[in-house]
């Protein structure tokens, strides 16, 4: 890392990279998601067939990843808004980033059972 830089290689830059990557991922998901939902206009059977793939263990992992991406993008997005509009925002941007990470970890832990529980039961029985 070049010496004396406030931004490059630091928290601010990496949170921006993560915000960008998650935003693009969510957009591509949404595109596919509107297409799969449109199957309700084709037939109930086709819709249910495609939605069945959403319930498989591997796709459950992808859903967990999607939840991770959205939760980070949403929380960090609120942080960006606070940095832009709150007069003390820029001063506390780093503390706010660690709060975002902290809340994200807690919520991701809370999402484990609801999102992955059924996949766990399917793979390991019971």
């Amino acid at each position, binding site marked *: 890392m070049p010496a004396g830089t406030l931004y490059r290689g630091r928290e601010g830059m990496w949170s921006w990279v993560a915000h960008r990557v998650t935003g693009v991922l969510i957009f591509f998901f949404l595109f596919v998601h509107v297409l799969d939902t449109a199957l309700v206009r084709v037939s109930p059977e086709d819709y249910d067939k495609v939605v069945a793939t959403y319930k498989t263990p591997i796709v459950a992992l992808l859903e967990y990843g999607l939840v991770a991406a959205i939760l980070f993008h*949403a929380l960090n997005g609120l942080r960006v808004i606070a940095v832009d509009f709150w007069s003390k925002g820029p001063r506390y941007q780093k503390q706010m980033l660690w709060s975002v990470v902290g809340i994200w970890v807690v919520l991701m832990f809370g*999402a484990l059972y609801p999102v992955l529980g*059924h996949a766990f039961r399917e793979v390991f029985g019971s």
Partner: protein
Amino acid sequence: MSTTDTAASGIGPVEGSGSFSAYGVDNPAPLIEAPRKRTKKTPKSTRGNFEMYGWLFMRLSGIVLVVLVLGHLLIQLVLDGGVSKIGFAFVAGRWASPWWQAWDLAMLWLAMLHGSNGLRTVINDYAERTTTRLWLKGLLYTATVFTILLGTLVIFTFDPNIR
């Protein structure tokens, strides 16, 4: 008055100064506009405020999307048995209510416009050749319009008795 007098200091002779003055009470010097001052002759629109409104829209839509999208995820993935309950019958039950129709409609429009505007920024950042940029943005806008129209059509024409 010769120019050489002041040339050494790098300042030329001042117009109208010296032994006679061209301007006076009856012949005042013309007023010179301050540089960059907005006058009647300045074009009304320079570049417009499009980027500022885009910036503002990202923030306002973001705040609304927190509620819409996180609420949606909670309903679809957590409450009431998680993904396992989703199927045609479940969607029919939800879209029987205008509240959830409006919710999904707002989420569709806001998320697509927010995501599309975000991707426009990303394309502007990385696609350096003008033609590449134009093609990528054309593709992006086509996909966005298509998705918004399709999603809107699906919400409004949903038929629980399709079969």
